[in-house]
Protein backbone atom coordinates (compact mmCIF):
# COMPACT_ATOMS: atom_id res chain seq x y z
CA UNK A 1 0.00 0.00 0.00
CA UNK A 2 1.31 3.43 -0.97
CA UNK A 3 1.29 6.32 1.46
CA UNK A 4 -0.89 9.16 0.20
CA UNK A 5 0.02 12.78 0.89
CA UNK A 6 -2.01 15.96 0.66
CA UNK A 7 0.00 18.42 -1.43
CA UNK A 8 -0.98 21.81 -2.86
CA UNK A 9 -4.50 23.17 -2.41
CA UNK A 10 -6.56 26.05 -3.78
CA UNK A 11 -9.83 27.67 -2.78
CA UNK A 12 -11.96 30.15 -4.69
CA UNK A 13 -14.89 31.68 -2.80
CA UNK A 14 -16.19 35.17 -2.14
CA UNK A 15 -13.26 35.47 0.27
CA UNK A 16 -10.49 35.06 -2.28
CA UNK A 17 -8.80 33.17 -5.07
CA UNK A 18 -6.22 31.16 -3.14
CA UNK A 19 -6.15 29.01 -0.01
CA UNK A 20 -4.04 31.67 1.71
CA UNK A 21 -6.44 34.51 0.89
CA UNK A 22 -9.37 32.48 2.19
CA UNK A 23 -7.58 31.36 5.32
CA UNK A 24 -6.36 34.82 6.25
CA UNK A 25 -9.84 36.31 5.74
CA UNK A 26 -11.22 33.61 8.02
CA UNK A 27 -8.49 34.23 10.59
CA UNK A 28 -9.65 37.82 10.73
CA UNK A 29 -13.22 36.70 11.19
CA UNK A 30 -14.44 38.01 7.81
CA UNK A 31 -17.47 36.37 6.32
CA UNK A 32 -18.21 36.36 2.60
CA UNK A 33 -21.94 36.01 3.18
CA UNK A 34 -24.03 38.98 2.06
CA UNK A 35 -27.63 39.85 1.43
CA UNK A 36 -28.59 39.86 -2.25
CA UNK A 37 -31.68 40.89 -4.20
CA UNK A 38 -31.80 39.08 -7.50
CA UNK A 39 -35.29 38.26 -8.77
CA UNK A 40 -33.76 35.96 -11.40
CA UNK A 41 -32.68 33.73 -8.51
CA UNK A 42 -35.40 34.19 -5.89
CA UNK A 43 -38.43 36.44 -5.57
CA UNK A 44 -37.23 37.83 -2.24
CA UNK A 45 -33.82 38.92 -0.87
CA UNK A 46 -31.58 36.10 0.33
CA UNK A 47 -28.23 35.59 2.01
CA UNK A 48 -25.48 33.83 0.10
CA UNK A 49 -21.76 33.80 -0.52
CA UNK A 50 -21.25 34.65 -4.19
CA UNK A 51 -18.16 34.96 -6.33
CA UNK A 52 -18.13 38.38 -7.97
CA UNK A 53 -18.78 38.11 -11.74
CA UNK A 54 -16.52 40.96 -12.78
CA UNK A 55 -13.59 39.78 -10.68
CA UNK A 56 -14.02 36.26 -12.02
CA UNK A 57 -13.94 37.45 -15.66
CA UNK A 58 -10.90 39.55 -14.88
CA UNK A 59 -9.06 36.64 -13.26
CA UNK A 60 -10.03 34.23 -16.01
CA UNK A 61 -8.89 36.61 -18.74
CA UNK A 62 -5.36 36.44 -17.31
CA UNK A 63 -5.40 32.71 -18.10
CA UNK A 64 -7.34 32.53 -21.33
CA UNK A 65 -9.26 34.67 -23.77
CA UNK A 66 -11.45 31.73 -24.76
CA UNK A 67 -15.08 32.65 -24.09
CA UNK A 68 -16.35 29.09 -24.44
CA UNK A 69 -16.24 28.21 -20.76
CA UNK A 70 -19.22 28.42 -18.45
CA UNK A 71 -19.00 30.29 -15.17
CA UNK A 72 -18.43 27.06 -13.22
CA UNK A 73 -15.88 25.76 -15.73
CA UNK A 74 -13.96 29.03 -15.32
CA UNK A 75 -13.90 28.49 -11.56
CA UNK A 76 -12.64 24.93 -12.00
CA UNK A 77 -9.95 25.99 -14.47
CA UNK A 78 -8.72 28.87 -12.28
CA UNK A 79 -8.63 26.70 -9.18
CA UNK A 80 -6.88 23.76 -10.84
CA UNK A 81 -4.42 26.05 -12.66
CA UNK A 82 -3.29 27.48 -9.32
CA UNK A 83 -2.60 24.00 -7.93
CA UNK A 84 -0.77 22.89 -11.08
CA UNK A 85 1.38 26.00 -11.11
CA UNK A 86 2.29 25.84 -7.43
CA UNK A 87 2.90 22.09 -7.30
CA UNK A 88 4.47 21.40 -10.67
CA UNK A 89 2.51 18.16 -10.98
CA UNK A 90 3.10 16.43 -14.31
CA UNK A 91 -0.12 16.40 -16.32
CA UNK A 92 1.33 14.39 -19.17
CA UNK A 93 2.00 11.54 -16.73
CA UNK A 94 -0.47 8.75 -17.44
CA UNK A 95 -0.53 8.16 -13.68
CA UNK A 96 -2.08 11.58 -13.08
CA UNK A 97 -5.89 11.70 -12.82
CA UNK A 98 -8.41 14.51 -12.42
CA UNK A 99 -11.46 13.92 -10.24
CA UNK A 100 -14.29 16.44 -10.50
CA UNK A 101 -16.74 16.70 -7.61
CA UNK A 102 -20.03 18.48 -8.12
CA UNK A 103 -23.68 18.11 -7.25
CA UNK A 104 -25.29 20.20 -9.96
CA UNK A 105 -22.49 21.19 -12.37
CA UNK A 106 -23.66 23.63 -15.06
CA UNK A 107 -27.27 23.50 -13.86
CA UNK A 108 -27.56 27.29 -14.36
CA UNK A 109 -27.62 26.58 -18.12
CA UNK A 110 -31.25 25.52 -17.62
CA UNK A 111 -32.10 29.04 -16.48
CA UNK A 112 -33.72 31.45 -18.89
CA UNK A 113 -30.98 34.07 -18.87
CA UNK A 114 -28.38 31.43 -19.82
CA UNK A 115 -30.44 29.44 -22.25
CA UNK A 116 -28.82 28.79 -25.62
CA UNK A 117 -25.44 30.34 -24.79
CA UNK A 118 -23.72 26.99 -24.38
CA UNK A 119 -24.51 23.61 -25.94
CA UNK A 120 -27.13 21.71 -23.98
CA UNK A 121 -24.81 18.73 -23.53
CA UNK A 122 -22.74 20.80 -21.08
CA UNK A 123 -25.48 20.07 -18.56
CA UNK A 124 -24.02 16.57 -18.46
CA UNK A 125 -21.48 16.42 -15.67
CA UNK A 126 -18.91 14.39 -17.60
CA UNK A 127 -19.10 16.80 -20.55
CA UNK A 128 -18.32 19.65 -18.17
CA UNK A 129 -15.46 17.65 -16.65
CA UNK A 130 -14.12 16.86 -20.11
CA UNK A 131 -14.00 20.57 -20.99
CA UNK A 132 -11.96 21.24 -17.88
CA UNK A 133 -9.60 18.29 -18.43
CA UNK A 134 -9.22 19.28 -22.09
CA UNK A 135 -8.17 22.79 -21.14
CA UNK A 136 -5.19 21.30 -19.33
CA UNK A 137 -4.54 18.70 -22.03
CA UNK A 138 -4.80 15.90 -19.53
CA UNK A 139 -4.10 12.38 -20.77
CA UNK A 140 -6.72 10.51 -18.76
CA UNK A 141 -10.45 11.11 -18.93
CA UNK A 142 -11.59 12.74 -15.70
CA UNK A 143 -13.60 10.86 -13.09
CA UNK A 144 -16.78 12.56 -11.85
CA UNK A 145 -18.14 12.09 -8.33
CA UNK A 146 -21.67 13.27 -7.59
CA UNK A 147 -22.92 12.12 -4.24
CA UNK A 148 -24.86 15.05 -2.75
CA UNK A 149 -23.12 17.03 -0.01
CA UNK A 150 -20.48 14.38 0.68
CA UNK A 151 -19.23 14.61 -2.94
CA UNK A 152 -16.08 16.52 -2.05
CA UNK A 153 -15.06 14.30 0.86
CA UNK A 154 -15.91 11.19 -1.16
CA UNK A 155 -13.82 12.50 -4.09
CA UNK A 156 -10.79 12.82 -1.77
CA UNK A 157 -11.45 9.36 -0.32
CA UNK A 158 -11.68 7.92 -3.85
CA UNK A 159 -8.43 9.62 -4.83
CA UNK A 160 -6.74 8.23 -1.72
CA UNK A 161 -7.91 4.72 -2.60
CA UNK A 162 -6.76 4.99 -6.23
CA UNK A 163 -3.31 6.11 -5.11
CA UNK A 164 -3.02 3.68 -2.18
CA UNK A 165 -3.62 0.74 -4.50
CA UNK A 166 -1.07 2.06 -7.00
CA UNK A 167 -3.54 2.72 -9.79
CA UNK A 168 -2.45 6.37 -9.90
CA UNK A 169 0.40 8.42 -8.54
CA UNK A 170 -1.18 11.88 -8.56
CA UNK A 171 -4.83 12.78 -8.33
CA UNK A 172 -6.05 16.36 -8.65
CA UNK A 173 -9.40 16.53 -6.87
CA UNK A 174 -11.49 19.57 -7.70
CA UNK A 175 -14.96 20.37 -6.43
CA UNK A 176 -17.27 23.14 -7.54
CA UNK A 177 -20.88 24.25 -7.45
CA UNK A 178 -22.77 27.48 -8.13
CA UNK A 179 -25.51 29.31 -6.31
CA UNK A 180 -28.38 29.27 -8.80
CA UNK A 181 -32.11 29.70 -9.12
CA UNK A 182 -32.24 25.91 -9.14
CA UNK A 183 -30.56 25.37 -5.76
CA UNK A 184 -31.99 28.45 -4.05
CA UNK A 185 -35.58 27.59 -5.02
CA UNK A 186 -35.05 23.97 -4.02
CA UNK A 187 -33.69 24.67 -0.56
CA UNK A 188 -36.37 27.31 -0.16
CA UNK A 189 -39.06 24.72 -0.99
CA UNK A 190 -37.51 22.71 1.83
CA UNK A 191 -37.94 25.76 4.11
CA UNK A 192 -34.24 25.27 4.79
CA UNK A 193 -32.87 28.72 3.88
CA UNK A 194 -31.88 30.98 6.75
CA UNK A 195 -33.01 34.62 6.50
CA UNK A 196 -29.72 35.68 8.09
CA UNK A 197 -26.14 34.36 7.78
CA UNK A 198 -26.19 30.74 8.95
CA UNK A 199 -25.33 29.94 12.57
CA UNK A 200 -24.09 26.34 12.77
CA UNK A 201 -24.84 24.55 16.09
CA UNK A 202 -26.30 27.73 17.58
CA UNK A 203 -29.56 27.76 19.54
CA UNK A 204 -30.91 30.47 17.24
CA UNK A 205 -29.94 28.76 13.96
CA UNK A 206 -32.50 29.07 11.20
CA UNK A 207 -31.12 26.93 8.41
CA UNK A 208 -28.53 27.03 5.70
CA UNK A 209 -26.88 29.77 3.68
CA UNK A 210 -25.79 28.70 0.21
CA UNK A 211 -22.38 29.52 -1.15
CA UNK A 212 -20.54 29.01 -4.41
CA UNK A 213 -16.95 28.30 -5.17
CA UNK A 214 -14.35 25.78 -6.06
CA UNK A 215 -11.73 23.89 -4.11
CA UNK A 216 -8.83 21.85 -5.46
CA UNK A 217 -6.45 19.51 -3.69
CA UNK A 218 -3.56 17.51 -5.08
CA UNK A 219 -3.09 14.06 -3.59
CA UNK A 220 0.11 12.21 -4.38
CA UNK A 221 2.36 9.34 -3.42
CA UNK A 222 5.31 11.35 -4.74
CA UNK A 223 6.95 13.12 -1.79
CA UNK A 224 8.88 15.38 -4.17
CA UNK A 225 5.66 17.29 -4.81
CA UNK A 226 5.47 18.40 -1.17
CA UNK A 227 6.91 21.65 0.09
CA UNK A 228 10.07 21.12 2.14
CA UNK A 229 9.31 23.79 4.69
CA UNK A 230 5.86 22.47 5.58
CA UNK A 231 4.38 19.62 7.57
CA UNK A 232 4.02 16.46 5.52
CA UNK A 233 0.37 15.57 5.88
CA UNK A 234 -0.98 12.16 4.96
CA UNK A 235 -4.49 11.41 3.77
CA UNK A 236 -4.55 8.59 6.27
CA UNK A 237 -8.07 7.23 6.38
CA UNK A 238 -11.50 7.59 4.87
CA UNK A 239 -14.88 5.97 5.12
CA UNK A 240 -18.47 6.38 3.92
CA UNK A 241 -21.74 5.18 5.43
CA UNK A 242 -25.47 5.44 4.88
CA UNK A 243 -28.15 6.18 7.49
CA UNK A 244 -30.71 3.87 5.85
CA UNK A 245 -33.29 6.09 7.49
CA UNK A 246 -34.74 8.78 5.23
CA UNK A 247 -33.77 10.39 1.92
CA UNK A 248 -33.77 13.94 3.27
CA UNK A 249 -33.93 13.67 7.07
CA UNK A 250 -30.70 12.64 8.83
CA UNK A 251 -30.33 9.74 11.24
CA UNK A 252 -32.05 10.10 14.62
CA UNK A 253 -29.08 8.61 16.45
CA UNK A 254 -25.95 9.72 14.57
CA UNK A 255 -24.66 6.16 14.76
CA UNK A 256 -24.03 5.94 11.03
CA UNK A 257 -21.88 9.08 10.84
CA UNK A 258 -20.08 7.75 13.93
CA UNK A 259 -19.51 4.49 12.05
CA UNK A 260 -17.81 6.33 9.17
CA UNK A 261 -15.76 8.38 11.66
CA UNK A 262 -14.59 5.29 13.54
CA UNK A 263 -13.74 3.42 10.34
CA UNK A 264 -11.72 6.38 9.04
CA UNK A 265 -9.83 6.68 12.34
CA UNK A 266 -9.13 2.93 12.38
CA UNK A 267 -7.80 3.02 8.84
CA UNK A 268 -5.58 5.99 9.68
CA UNK A 269 -3.92 4.02 12.50
CA UNK A 270 -2.57 7.27 13.88
CA UNK A 271 -0.83 7.14 17.21
CA UNK A 272 -2.26 10.50 18.24
CA UNK A 273 -5.81 11.32 19.07
CA UNK A 274 -7.81 13.64 16.81
CA UNK A 275 -6.80 17.26 17.56
CA UNK A 276 -9.36 19.05 15.46
CA UNK A 277 -12.64 18.38 13.65
CA UNK A 278 -13.84 20.27 10.61
CA UNK A 279 -17.48 19.24 10.80
CA UNK A 280 -20.29 19.65 8.28
CA UNK A 281 -22.45 22.04 10.37
CA UNK A 282 -25.04 23.23 7.85
CA UNK A 283 -27.08 25.02 10.54
CA UNK A 284 -30.28 23.10 9.86
CA UNK A 285 -31.98 21.91 13.03
CA UNK A 286 -31.71 18.23 12.25
CA UNK A 287 -28.26 18.04 10.65
CA UNK A 288 -26.45 19.78 13.49
CA UNK A 289 -28.32 17.72 16.07
CA UNK A 290 -27.40 14.49 14.29
CA UNK A 291 -23.73 15.48 14.15
CA UNK A 292 -23.65 16.34 17.85
CA UNK A 293 -25.01 12.88 18.65
CA UNK A 294 -22.56 11.23 16.25
CA UNK A 295 -19.50 12.89 17.79
CA UNK A 296 -20.69 11.78 21.22
CA UNK A 297 -21.19 8.22 19.99
CA UNK A 298 -17.65 8.32 18.57
CA UNK A 299 -16.30 9.73 21.87
CA UNK A 300 -15.09 12.94 20.21
CA UNK A 301 -17.30 15.42 22.08
CA UNK A 302 -14.27 17.14 23.67
CA UNK A 303 -12.31 17.68 20.47
CA UNK A 304 -12.13 21.26 19.17
CA UNK A 305 -14.58 21.58 16.31
CA UNK A 306 -15.77 24.13 13.82
CA UNK A 307 -18.11 24.51 10.89
CA UNK A 308 -16.86 26.80 8.14
CA UNK A 309 -20.30 27.44 6.66
CA UNK A 310 -20.54 30.81 8.47
CA UNK A 311 -17.67 32.10 6.28
CA UNK A 312 -18.68 31.04 2.76
CA UNK A 313 -21.96 29.19 3.19
CA UNK A 314 -22.71 25.66 2.06
CA UNK A 315 -20.85 25.16 -1.19
CA UNK A 316 -22.45 21.72 -1.84
CA UNK A 317 -20.13 19.62 -4.06
CA UNK A 318 -17.22 21.96 -3.37
CA UNK A 319 -17.69 21.98 0.41
CA UNK A 320 -15.77 18.80 1.23
CA UNK A 321 -12.73 19.96 -0.72
CA UNK A 322 -12.76 23.64 0.26
CA UNK A 323 -13.16 22.69 3.91
CA UNK A 324 -10.48 19.98 3.68
CA UNK A 325 -8.04 22.51 2.24
CA UNK A 326 -8.83 24.84 5.17
CA UNK A 327 -8.36 21.92 7.59
CA UNK A 328 -4.94 21.29 6.03
CA UNK A 329 -4.06 24.98 6.42
CA UNK A 330 -5.21 24.69 10.04
CA UNK A 331 -2.66 21.91 10.52
CA UNK A 332 0.15 23.67 8.66
CA UNK A 333 -0.37 26.97 10.46
CA UNK A 334 -1.38 25.42 13.80
CA UNK A 335 -4.28 27.84 13.90
CA UNK A 336 -7.85 26.80 14.53
CA UNK A 337 -10.48 29.13 13.08
CA UNK A 338 -13.48 30.14 15.18
CA UNK A 339 -16.84 28.64 14.21
CA UNK A 340 -18.47 31.79 12.88
CA UNK A 341 -22.09 32.37 13.89
CA UNK A 342 -21.94 30.24 17.02
CA UNK A 343 -22.86 31.74 20.38
CA UNK A 344 -24.99 29.39 22.47
CA UNK A 345 -25.27 25.67 21.97
CA UNK A 346 -28.44 24.57 20.29
CA UNK A 347 -27.76 20.84 20.15
CA UNK A 348 -28.65 18.22 22.74
CA UNK A 349 -25.17 16.73 23.16
CA UNK A 350 -22.01 18.60 24.21
CA UNK A 351 -19.59 19.77 21.51
CA UNK A 352 -16.33 21.67 21.94
CA UNK A 353 -17.02 24.41 19.41
CA UNK A 354 -14.18 26.83 18.72
CA UNK A 355 -15.31 30.28 19.88
CA UNK A 356 -12.15 32.18 19.16
CA UNK A 357 -9.45 31.61 16.59
CA UNK A 358 -6.55 30.10 18.49
CA UNK A 359 -3.03 28.74 18.08
CA UNK A 360 -2.61 25.06 18.87
CA UNK A 361 -0.39 22.28 17.56
CA UNK A 362 -2.63 20.28 15.22
CA UNK A 363 -1.22 17.02 13.91
CA UNK A 364 -4.34 15.00 13.27
CA UNK A 365 -7.63 16.28 11.98
CA UNK A 366 -10.97 14.86 10.99
CA UNK A 367 -13.21 16.16 8.20
CA UNK A 368 -16.83 15.00 8.02
CA UNK A 369 -19.79 15.58 5.76
CA UNK A 370 -23.36 14.32 5.50
CA UNK A 371 -25.99 14.75 2.84
CA UNK A 372 -29.29 13.94 1.23
CA UNK A 373 -29.75 10.28 0.50
CA UNK A 374 -28.57 9.55 4.07
CA UNK A 375 -24.89 9.60 3.14
CA UNK A 376 -22.05 10.33 5.57
CA UNK A 377 -18.30 10.56 4.95
CA UNK A 378 -15.26 10.97 7.17
CA UNK A 379 -11.64 11.66 6.35
CA UNK A 380 -8.54 11.69 8.58
CA UNK A 381 -5.48 13.83 7.84
CA UNK A 382 -2.38 13.22 9.92
CA UNK A 383 1.31 14.11 9.97
Amino acid sequence: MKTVFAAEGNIITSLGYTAEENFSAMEQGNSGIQKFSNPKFLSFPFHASLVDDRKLSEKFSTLSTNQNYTRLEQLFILSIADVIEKSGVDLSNEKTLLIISTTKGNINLLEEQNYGIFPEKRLLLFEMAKEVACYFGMKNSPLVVSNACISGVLAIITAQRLIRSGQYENVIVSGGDLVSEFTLSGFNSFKALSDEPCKPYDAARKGITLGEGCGTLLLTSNENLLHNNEKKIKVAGGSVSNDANHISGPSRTGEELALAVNNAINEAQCANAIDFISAHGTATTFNDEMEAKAFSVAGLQNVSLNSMKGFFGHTLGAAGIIESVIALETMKKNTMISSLGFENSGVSMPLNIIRQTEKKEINTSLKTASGFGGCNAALVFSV
Partner: protein
Amino acid sequence: MDELIAKLKTQIIEQLNLEGVSPDDISPDDQLFGEGLGLDSIDALELIVLLEKNYGIKIENPAEGKKIFATIRSMAEYITSKGKA
Protein backbone atom coordinates in the same frame (compact mmCIF):
# COMPACT_ATOMS: atom_id res chain seq x y z
CA MET B 1 -66.95 21.79 5.55
CA ASP B 2 -67.79 18.32 4.18
CA GLU B 3 -67.32 19.56 0.67
CA LEU B 4 -63.93 21.04 1.54
CA ILE B 5 -62.91 17.79 3.25
CA ALA B 6 -63.84 15.77 0.17
CA LYS B 7 -61.91 18.16 -2.07
CA LEU B 8 -58.85 18.04 0.22
CA LYS B 9 -58.81 14.25 0.16
CA THR B 10 -58.59 14.19 -3.63
CA GLN B 11 -56.00 16.95 -3.71
CA ILE B 12 -53.80 15.23 -1.11
CA ILE B 13 -53.93 11.88 -2.89
CA GLU B 14 -52.91 13.56 -6.12
CA GLN B 15 -50.23 15.88 -4.71
CA LEU B 16 -48.57 13.17 -2.64
CA ASN B 17 -48.84 10.35 -5.20
CA LEU B 18 -50.70 8.11 -2.76
CA GLU B 19 -51.02 5.19 -5.15
CA GLY B 20 -53.87 2.80 -4.38
CA VAL B 21 -55.43 5.11 -1.78
CA SER B 22 -58.97 6.26 -2.52
CA PRO B 23 -60.75 9.18 -0.81
CA ASP B 24 -62.98 6.68 1.02
CA ASP B 25 -59.92 5.10 2.64
CA ILE B 26 -59.14 8.28 4.56
CA SER B 27 -61.33 9.41 7.43
CA PRO B 28 -61.25 13.16 8.15
CA ASP B 29 -59.95 12.40 11.63
CA ASP B 30 -57.18 9.95 10.68
CA GLN B 31 -53.69 11.06 11.67
CA LEU B 32 -51.90 12.01 8.47
CA PHE B 33 -48.39 11.51 9.88
CA GLY B 34 -46.85 8.67 11.85
CA GLU B 35 -49.24 5.81 12.48
CA GLY B 36 -52.11 6.97 10.25
CA LEU B 37 -51.43 7.61 6.60
CA GLY B 38 -47.68 7.36 7.23
CA LEU B 39 -46.69 10.66 5.61
CA ASP B 40 -43.19 12.02 6.14
CA SER B 41 -41.36 15.37 6.26
CA ILE B 42 -41.24 15.75 2.45
CA ASP B 43 -45.01 15.14 2.32
CA ALA B 44 -45.41 17.91 4.91
CA LEU B 45 -43.52 20.26 2.60
CA GLU B 46 -45.73 19.21 -0.31
CA LEU B 47 -48.82 19.97 1.81
CA ILE B 48 -47.42 23.47 2.31
CA VAL B 49 -47.20 23.76 -1.50
CA LEU B 50 -50.76 22.41 -1.78
CA LEU B 51 -52.13 25.09 0.54
CA GLU B 52 -50.32 27.82 -1.34
CA LYS B 53 -51.22 26.54 -4.79
CA ASN B 54 -54.90 25.74 -4.20
CA TYR B 55 -55.86 28.10 -1.38
CA GLY B 56 -53.36 30.95 -1.55
CA ILE B 57 -52.24 30.32 2.03
CA LYS B 58 -48.53 30.70 2.83
CA ILE B 59 -46.94 28.84 5.73
CA GLU B 60 -43.41 30.10 6.31
CA ASN B 61 -42.63 28.13 9.43
CA PRO B 62 -42.84 24.36 8.87
CA ALA B 63 -43.23 23.88 12.65
CA GLU B 64 -46.63 25.56 12.31
CA GLY B 65 -47.57 22.82 9.87
CA LYS B 66 -47.59 20.12 12.56
CA LYS B 67 -50.87 21.29 14.05
CA ILE B 68 -52.46 22.31 10.77
CA PHE B 69 -51.64 19.02 9.04
CA ALA B 70 -52.61 16.72 11.92
CA THR B 71 -55.75 15.50 10.14
CA ILE B 72 -57.78 16.39 7.06
CA ARG B 73 -60.32 18.02 9.38
CA SER B 74 -57.70 20.23 11.02
CA MET B 75 -56.51 21.28 7.56
CA ALA B 76 -60.07 22.11 6.50
CA GLU B 77 -60.64 24.09 9.69
CA TYR B 78 -57.44 26.04 9.13
CA ILE B 79 -58.40 26.87 5.54
CA THR B 80 -61.87 27.95 6.69
CA SER B 81 -60.40 30.09 9.48
CA LYS B 82 -58.32 31.89 6.85
CA GLY B 83 -61.52 32.56 4.91
CA LYS B 84 -60.14 30.72 1.88
CA ALA B 85 -62.48 27.75 1.65
